[in-house]
Protein backbone atom coordinates (compact mmCIF):
# COMPACT_ATOMS: atom_id res chain seq x y z
CA UNK A 1 0.00 0.00 0.00
CA UNK A 2 1.22 3.44 -0.90
CA UNK A 3 1.19 5.54 2.23
CA UNK A 4 0.49 8.92 0.67
CA UNK A 5 -1.99 7.89 -2.01
CA UNK A 6 -3.93 5.12 -0.36
CA UNK A 7 -3.48 5.05 3.41
CA UNK A 8 -4.03 8.76 3.99
CA UNK A 9 -7.08 8.71 1.72
CA UNK A 10 -8.49 5.88 3.85
CA UNK A 11 -7.75 7.82 7.05
CA UNK A 12 -9.86 10.73 5.84
CA UNK A 13 -12.64 8.44 4.78
CA UNK A 14 -12.51 6.84 8.20
CA UNK A 15 -12.82 10.26 9.84
CA UNK A 16 -15.82 11.04 7.62
CA UNK A 17 -17.48 7.74 8.51
CA UNK A 18 -17.30 6.96 4.83
CA UNK A 19 -15.28 3.75 4.89
CA UNK A 20 -16.15 0.13 4.08
CA UNK A 21 -15.45 -2.69 6.55
CA UNK A 22 -12.75 -4.29 4.42
CA UNK A 23 -11.10 -0.89 3.79
CA UNK A 24 -11.01 -0.32 7.52
CA UNK A 25 -9.30 -3.69 7.99
CA UNK A 26 -6.78 -2.80 5.29
CA UNK A 27 -6.07 0.52 7.01
CA UNK A 28 -5.69 -1.09 10.44
CA UNK A 29 -3.23 -3.66 9.09
CA UNK A 30 -1.18 -0.94 7.42
CA UNK A 31 -1.10 1.20 10.56
CA UNK A 32 0.24 -1.75 12.54
CA UNK A 33 3.27 -2.01 10.32
CA UNK A 34 3.84 1.65 9.25
CA UNK A 35 4.96 4.04 11.95
CA UNK A 36 4.81 7.12 9.69
CA UNK A 37 1.15 6.52 8.90
CA UNK A 38 0.43 5.76 12.55
CA UNK A 39 1.84 9.15 13.47
CA UNK A 40 -0.10 10.81 10.66
CA UNK A 41 -3.35 9.18 11.75
CA UNK A 42 -2.76 10.17 15.36
CA UNK A 43 -2.19 13.79 14.34
CA UNK A 44 -5.35 13.87 12.24
CA UNK A 45 -7.50 12.51 15.04
CA UNK A 46 -5.95 14.98 17.44
CA UNK A 47 -6.64 17.83 15.04
CA UNK A 48 -10.31 16.87 14.97
CA UNK A 49 -10.40 16.71 18.77
CA UNK A 50 -8.78 20.13 19.04
CA UNK A 51 -11.25 21.59 16.54
CA UNK A 52 -14.18 20.21 18.48
CA UNK A 53 -12.86 21.58 21.75
CA UNK A 54 -12.92 25.23 20.74
CA UNK A 55 -15.10 27.51 22.79
CA UNK A 56 -18.31 28.98 21.56
CA UNK A 57 -18.75 32.67 21.18
CA UNK A 58 -21.79 34.67 22.13
CA UNK A 59 -23.37 37.29 19.95
CA UNK A 60 -23.01 40.88 21.22
CA UNK A 61 -25.64 42.23 23.61
CA UNK A 62 -28.88 43.42 22.05
CA UNK A 63 -28.12 41.50 18.87
CA UNK A 64 -31.66 40.19 18.52
CA UNK A 65 -33.15 43.59 19.33
CA UNK A 66 -31.06 45.28 16.63
CA UNK A 67 -32.12 42.68 14.08
CA UNK A 68 -35.78 43.18 14.97
CA UNK A 69 -35.37 46.95 14.68
CA UNK A 70 -33.89 46.61 11.22
CA UNK A 71 -36.59 44.39 9.76
CA UNK A 72 -38.66 46.01 7.02
CA UNK A 73 -41.93 47.49 8.30
CA UNK A 74 -44.93 45.24 8.34
CA UNK A 75 -47.32 45.73 5.48
CA UNK A 76 -50.66 45.69 7.21
CA UNK A 77 -52.81 44.92 4.20
CA UNK A 78 -50.57 42.05 3.21
CA UNK A 79 -51.02 40.67 6.68
CA UNK A 80 -54.80 40.92 6.46
CA UNK A 81 -54.86 39.27 3.08
CA UNK A 82 -52.79 36.42 4.46
CA UNK A 83 -55.07 36.16 7.46
CA UNK A 84 -58.15 36.09 5.24
CA UNK A 85 -56.64 33.36 3.14
CA UNK A 86 -55.89 31.30 6.20
CA UNK A 87 -59.29 31.78 7.79
CA UNK A 88 -61.90 31.82 5.03
CA UNK A 89 -64.80 30.88 7.30
CA UNK A 90 -63.94 33.49 9.92
CA UNK A 91 -63.49 36.03 7.16
CA UNK A 92 -66.94 35.31 5.76
CA UNK A 93 -68.40 35.64 9.24
CA UNK A 94 -66.51 38.89 9.86
CA UNK A 95 -67.71 40.38 6.61
CA UNK A 96 -71.25 39.34 7.41
CA UNK A 97 -71.09 41.06 10.80
CA UNK A 98 -69.53 44.19 9.36
CA UNK A 99 -72.45 44.49 6.97
CA UNK A 100 -74.96 43.66 9.63
CA UNK A 101 -73.51 46.05 12.13
CA UNK A 102 -73.20 48.83 9.58
CA UNK A 103 -76.75 48.40 8.36
CA UNK A 104 -78.32 48.07 11.77
CA UNK A 105 -76.50 51.05 13.23
CA UNK A 106 -77.51 53.16 10.28
CA UNK A 107 -81.15 52.32 10.75
CA UNK A 108 -80.79 52.84 14.50
CA UNK A 109 -79.43 56.32 14.02
CA UNK A 110 -81.47 57.43 11.08
CA UNK A 111 -85.07 56.98 12.07
CA UNK A 112 -86.16 58.35 15.35
CA UNK A 113 -89.74 58.67 14.21
CA UNK A 114 -92.51 56.79 15.87
CA UNK A 115 -93.34 53.68 13.94
CA UNK A 116 -96.23 51.38 14.68
CA UNK A 117 -96.71 48.19 12.76
CA UNK A 118 -100.52 48.44 12.88
CA UNK A 119 -102.56 51.56 13.29
CA UNK A 120 -106.16 50.45 12.96
CA UNK A 121 -108.08 51.10 16.14
CA UNK A 122 -104.98 52.26 18.04
CA UNK A 123 -104.68 55.67 19.64
CA UNK A 124 -101.50 57.58 19.04
CA UNK A 125 -100.94 60.27 21.59
CA UNK A 126 -97.69 62.06 20.82
CA UNK A 127 -95.02 59.44 21.39
CA UNK A 128 -97.34 57.00 23.06
CA UNK A 129 -99.35 54.28 21.42
CA UNK A 130 -102.43 53.08 23.22
CA UNK A 131 -104.27 49.83 22.61
CA UNK A 132 -107.74 50.79 23.88
CA UNK A 133 -109.90 48.68 26.17
CA UNK A 134 -112.22 47.35 23.60
CA UNK A 135 -109.61 46.64 20.93
CA UNK A 136 -108.00 43.32 20.08
CA UNK A 137 -104.94 43.52 17.86
CA UNK A 138 -104.73 40.44 15.73
CA UNK A 139 -101.16 39.53 15.01
CA UNK A 140 -97.82 40.97 16.19
CA UNK A 141 -97.42 44.54 17.30
CA UNK A 142 -94.17 46.45 16.94
CA UNK A 143 -93.70 49.93 18.35
CA UNK A 144 -90.51 51.75 17.57
CA UNK A 145 -89.36 55.03 19.12
CA UNK A 146 -92.43 55.28 21.28
CA UNK A 147 -94.10 54.03 24.42
CA UNK A 148 -96.95 51.61 24.56
CA UNK A 149 -99.99 51.35 26.78
CA UNK A 150 -101.97 48.17 26.44
CA UNK A 151 -105.47 48.34 27.82
CA UNK A 152 -106.97 45.89 25.38
CA UNK A 153 -105.65 42.65 23.94
CA UNK A 154 -102.84 41.76 21.57
CA UNK A 155 -103.17 38.37 19.94
CA UNK A 156 -99.52 38.03 19.08
CA UNK A 157 -96.05 39.13 20.07
CA UNK A 158 -95.37 42.64 21.27
CA UNK A 159 -92.05 44.28 20.55
CA UNK A 160 -91.18 47.70 21.87
CA UNK A 161 -88.07 49.24 20.39
CA UNK A 162 -86.49 52.26 22.04
CA UNK A 163 -89.48 52.84 24.19
CA UNK A 164 -91.31 51.63 27.24
CA UNK A 165 -94.38 49.77 28.18
CA UNK A 166 -96.24 52.28 30.31
CA UNK A 167 -98.09 51.23 33.36
CA UNK A 168 -101.36 53.12 33.54
CA UNK A 169 -101.65 52.36 37.22
CA UNK A 170 -98.24 53.28 38.65
CA UNK A 171 -99.16 52.37 42.20
CA UNK A 172 -100.05 48.83 41.35
CA UNK A 173 -97.65 46.60 43.28
CA UNK A 174 -98.41 43.52 41.35
CA UNK A 175 -96.03 44.35 38.57
CA UNK A 176 -96.01 45.23 34.95
CA UNK A 177 -97.72 42.29 33.30
CA UNK A 178 -100.65 42.39 35.68
CA UNK A 179 -101.36 45.99 34.92
CA UNK A 180 -101.47 45.65 31.18
CA UNK A 181 -104.19 44.23 29.12
CA UNK A 182 -103.72 40.87 27.58
CA UNK A 183 -100.72 39.93 25.51
CA UNK A 184 -101.21 36.48 24.08
CA UNK A 185 -97.64 36.15 22.95
CA UNK A 186 -94.15 37.20 23.85
CA UNK A 187 -93.40 40.65 25.09
CA UNK A 188 -90.04 41.85 23.87
CA UNK A 189 -88.55 45.07 25.07
CA UNK A 190 -85.67 46.47 23.07
CA UNK A 191 -84.08 49.72 24.10
CA UNK A 192 -80.35 49.26 23.87
CA UNK A 193 -78.26 49.39 20.76
CA UNK A 194 -76.89 45.97 21.49
CA UNK A 195 -80.30 44.43 21.94
CA UNK A 196 -81.45 46.25 18.88
CA UNK A 197 -78.70 44.56 16.90
CA UNK A 198 -79.47 41.23 18.42
CA UNK A 199 -83.09 41.67 17.55
CA UNK A 200 -82.12 42.37 13.95
CA UNK A 201 -79.78 39.44 13.77
CA UNK A 202 -82.42 37.16 15.28
CA UNK A 203 -85.05 38.26 12.82
CA UNK A 204 -82.50 38.01 10.03
CA UNK A 205 -81.84 34.40 10.89
CA UNK A 206 -85.53 33.72 11.35
CA UNK A 207 -86.09 35.00 7.85
CA UNK A 208 -83.16 33.12 6.43
CA UNK A 209 -84.10 29.83 8.02
CA UNK A 210 -87.85 30.22 7.88
CA UNK A 211 -89.61 27.19 6.55
CA UNK A 212 -92.87 28.01 4.85
Amino acid at each position, binding site marked *: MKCKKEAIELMHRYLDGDILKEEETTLRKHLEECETCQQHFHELKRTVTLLQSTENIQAPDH*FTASVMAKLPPEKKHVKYIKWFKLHPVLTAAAIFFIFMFGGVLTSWNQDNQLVVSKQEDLIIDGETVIVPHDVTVEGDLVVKNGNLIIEGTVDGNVTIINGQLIDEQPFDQEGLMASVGEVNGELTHVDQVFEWMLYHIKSFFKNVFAVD
Partner: protein
Amino acid sequence: MEQLIKDKIIQVKRGNRAAFEEVVAFFQDRIYHHCLRMIGNAHEAEDIAQEVFIRAYVNIHSFDERRKFSTWLYRIATNLTIDRIRKRKPDYYLDAEIKGTDGLDMYSQLASDHRQPDEEVEGLELKQFIHNEIANLPAKYRSIIMLRYIEEFSLNEISEIMDMPLGTVKTRIHRGREALRKKLRHV
Protein backbone atom coordinates in the same frame (compact mmCIF):
# COMPACT_ATOMS: atom_id res chain seq x y z
CA MET B 1 -35.70 21.32 18.65
CA GLU B 2 -35.89 21.19 14.87
CA GLN B 3 -39.67 20.73 15.12
CA LEU B 4 -39.96 23.68 17.49
CA ILE B 5 -38.07 25.85 15.02
CA LYS B 6 -40.30 24.64 12.19
CA ASP B 7 -43.39 25.64 14.15
CA LYS B 8 -41.88 29.07 14.72
CA ILE B 9 -41.13 29.46 11.03
CA ILE B 10 -44.73 28.63 10.13
CA GLN B 11 -45.82 31.36 12.53
CA VAL B 12 -43.32 33.78 10.95
CA LYS B 13 -44.77 32.98 7.53
CA ARG B 14 -48.18 33.92 8.91
CA GLY B 15 -46.78 37.31 9.85
CA ASN B 16 -45.87 36.68 13.48
CA ARG B 17 -42.83 38.85 14.22
CA ALA B 18 -42.50 37.71 17.81
CA ALA B 19 -41.93 34.17 16.55
CA PHE B 20 -39.08 35.43 14.39
CA GLU B 21 -37.54 37.16 17.39
CA GLU B 22 -37.37 33.76 19.10
CA VAL B 23 -35.72 32.26 16.04
CA VAL B 24 -33.07 35.01 16.03
CA ALA B 25 -32.44 34.58 19.74
CA PHE B 26 -32.00 30.85 19.23
CA PHE B 27 -29.49 31.09 16.36
CA GLN B 28 -27.76 34.39 17.09
CA ASP B 29 -24.69 32.96 18.86
CA ARG B 30 -24.01 30.29 16.25
CA ILE B 31 -24.48 32.58 13.28
CA TYR B 32 -22.45 35.37 14.84
CA HIS B 33 -19.70 32.90 15.70
CA HIS B 34 -19.64 31.59 12.14
CA CYS B 35 -19.46 35.10 10.68
CA LEU B 36 -16.74 36.12 13.13
CA ARG B 37 -14.58 33.12 12.25
CA MET B 38 -15.11 33.66 8.56
CA ILE B 39 -14.57 37.43 8.62
CA GLY B 40 -12.19 37.89 11.55
CA ASN B 41 -13.55 41.30 12.50
CA ALA B 42 -16.09 41.62 15.30
CA HIS B 43 -17.78 44.73 13.98
CA GLU B 44 -18.07 43.45 10.43
CA ALA B 45 -19.16 40.02 11.67
CA GLU B 46 -22.01 41.56 13.66
CA ASP B 47 -23.06 43.53 10.62
CA ILE B 48 -23.14 40.47 8.40
CA ALA B 49 -24.77 38.24 11.02
CA GLN B 50 -27.60 40.78 11.33
CA GLU B 51 -27.90 40.86 7.56
CA VAL B 52 -28.23 37.06 7.57
CA PHE B 53 -31.32 37.25 9.77
CA ILE B 54 -32.81 40.18 7.88
CA ARG B 55 -32.47 38.28 4.60
CA ALA B 56 -33.93 35.18 6.19
CA TYR B 57 -36.96 37.20 7.31
CA VAL B 58 -37.46 38.92 3.97
CA ASN B 59 -37.15 35.64 2.06
CA ILE B 60 -38.90 33.42 4.58
CA HIS B 61 -41.57 32.40 2.07
CA SER B 62 -38.93 30.78 -0.13
CA PHE B 63 -37.98 28.45 2.74
CA ASP B 64 -39.45 24.98 2.37
CA GLU B 65 -40.49 23.67 5.81
CA ARG B 66 -39.73 20.10 4.80
CA ARG B 67 -36.04 21.01 4.90
CA LYS B 68 -33.86 21.86 7.84
CA PHE B 69 -34.04 25.52 8.76
CA SER B 70 -30.48 25.73 10.11
CA THR B 71 -29.14 24.47 6.76
CA TRP B 72 -31.06 27.18 4.95
CA LEU B 73 -29.90 29.85 7.42
CA TYR B 74 -26.25 28.82 7.12
CA ARG B 75 -26.52 28.92 3.37
CA ILE B 76 -27.40 32.61 3.63
CA ALA B 77 -24.58 33.13 6.14
CA THR B 78 -22.05 31.33 3.95
CA ASN B 79 -23.04 33.24 0.83
CA LEU B 80 -22.86 36.58 2.62
CA THR B 81 -19.51 35.95 4.29
CA ILE B 82 -17.82 34.54 1.20
CA ASP B 83 -19.20 37.41 -0.84
CA ARG B 84 -17.81 39.89 1.69
CA ILE B 85 -14.38 38.27 1.64
CA ARG B 86 -14.31 38.41 -2.16
CA LYS B 87 -15.20 42.09 -2.20
CA ARG B 88 -12.46 43.07 0.19
CA LYS B 89 -9.75 45.31 -1.11
CA PRO B 90 -6.26 43.86 -0.64
CA ASP B 91 -5.23 46.78 1.60
CA TYR B 92 -8.00 45.86 4.01
CA TYR B 93 -5.70 43.39 5.69
CA LEU B 94 -3.11 46.05 6.47
CA ASP B 95 -5.68 48.50 7.82
CA ALA B 96 -7.57 45.96 9.84
CA GLU B 97 -7.56 46.70 13.51
CA ILE B 98 -9.60 44.29 15.53
CA LYS B 99 -10.58 44.79 19.11
CA GLY B 100 -11.79 42.03 21.40
CA THR B 101 -11.86 39.27 18.82
CA ASP B 102 -9.95 36.69 20.76
CA GLY B 103 -6.63 37.19 19.08
CA LEU B 104 -8.07 37.08 15.59
CA ASP B 105 -6.49 40.41 14.86
CA MET B 106 -4.73 40.37 11.51
CA TYR B 107 -1.42 41.72 12.83
CA SER B 108 -1.02 38.87 15.23
CA GLN B 109 -1.89 36.47 12.47
CA LEU B 110 0.76 37.93 10.21
CA ALA B 111 3.23 37.92 13.04
CA SER B 112 2.42 34.37 14.04
CA ASP B 113 3.30 33.12 10.58
CA HIS B 114 6.88 34.15 11.14
CA ARG B 115 7.25 32.64 14.55
CA GLN B 116 8.00 29.10 15.55
CA PRO B 117 5.05 26.93 16.64
CA ASP B 118 6.40 26.62 20.19
CA GLU B 119 6.49 30.38 20.62
CA GLU B 120 2.97 30.63 19.27
CA VAL B 121 1.67 28.26 21.89
CA GLU B 122 3.46 30.22 24.59
CA GLY B 123 1.97 33.52 23.40
CA LEU B 124 -1.60 32.47 22.94
CA GLU B 125 -4.22 30.43 24.65
CA LEU B 126 -4.57 27.07 22.95
CA LYS B 127 -8.13 27.71 21.84
CA GLN B 128 -7.24 31.08 20.42
CA PHE B 129 -4.34 29.48 18.64
CA ILE B 130 -6.65 26.92 17.05
CA HIS B 131 -9.02 29.66 15.96
CA ASN B 132 -6.13 31.55 14.47
CA GLU B 133 -5.17 28.53 12.47
CA ILE B 134 -8.72 28.10 11.24
CA ALA B 135 -8.72 31.78 10.31
CA ASN B 136 -5.50 31.29 8.35
CA LEU B 137 -7.02 28.62 6.16
CA PRO B 138 -8.08 29.67 2.68
CA ALA B 139 -11.79 30.69 2.82
CA LYS B 140 -12.94 27.69 0.80
CA TYR B 141 -11.54 25.27 3.38
CA ARG B 142 -12.33 27.49 6.33
CA SER B 143 -16.08 27.58 5.77
CA ILE B 144 -16.28 23.80 5.43
CA ILE B 145 -14.10 23.09 8.48
CA MET B 146 -16.26 25.52 10.48
CA LEU B 147 -19.48 23.87 9.33
CA ARG B 148 -18.16 20.39 10.04
CA TYR B 149 -16.38 20.80 13.37
CA ILE B 150 -17.75 23.94 14.98
CA GLU B 151 -21.33 23.75 13.73
CA GLU B 152 -21.36 19.95 13.46
CA PHE B 153 -23.24 19.59 10.19
CA SER B 154 -23.11 16.33 8.27
CA LEU B 155 -21.24 16.19 4.95
CA ASN B 156 -24.56 16.01 3.11
CA GLU B 157 -25.84 19.09 4.90
CA ILE B 158 -22.62 20.96 4.09
CA SER B 159 -23.06 19.98 0.44
CA GLU B 160 -26.52 21.55 0.61
CA ILE B 161 -25.36 24.67 2.46
CA MET B 162 -22.43 25.29 0.12
CA ASP B 163 -24.39 24.22 -2.94
CA MET B 164 -21.55 22.02 -4.13
CA PRO B 165 -21.24 18.31 -4.90
CA LEU B 166 -20.61 15.95 -1.99
CA GLY B 167 -17.32 14.89 -3.63
CA THR B 168 -16.05 18.49 -3.58
CA VAL B 169 -17.02 18.83 0.08
CA LYS B 170 -15.06 15.67 0.91
CA THR B 171 -11.97 16.80 -1.02
CA ARG B 172 -12.01 20.18 0.71
CA ILE B 173 -12.52 18.77 4.17
CA HIS B 174 -9.60 16.37 3.59
CA ARG B 175 -7.35 19.22 2.49
CA GLY B 176 -8.52 21.47 5.31
CA ARG B 177 -7.81 18.73 7.86
CA GLU B 178 -4.37 18.11 6.39
CA ALA B 179 -3.53 21.81 6.49
CA LEU B 180 -4.62 22.06 10.11
CA ARG B 181 -2.80 18.87 11.03
CA LYS B 182 0.46 20.45 9.90
CA LYS B 183 -0.26 23.57 11.97
CA LEU B 184 -1.47 21.80 15.09
CA ARG B 185 0.89 18.82 15.21
CA HIS B 186 3.26 20.58 17.61
CA VAL B 187 0.58 21.74 20.02
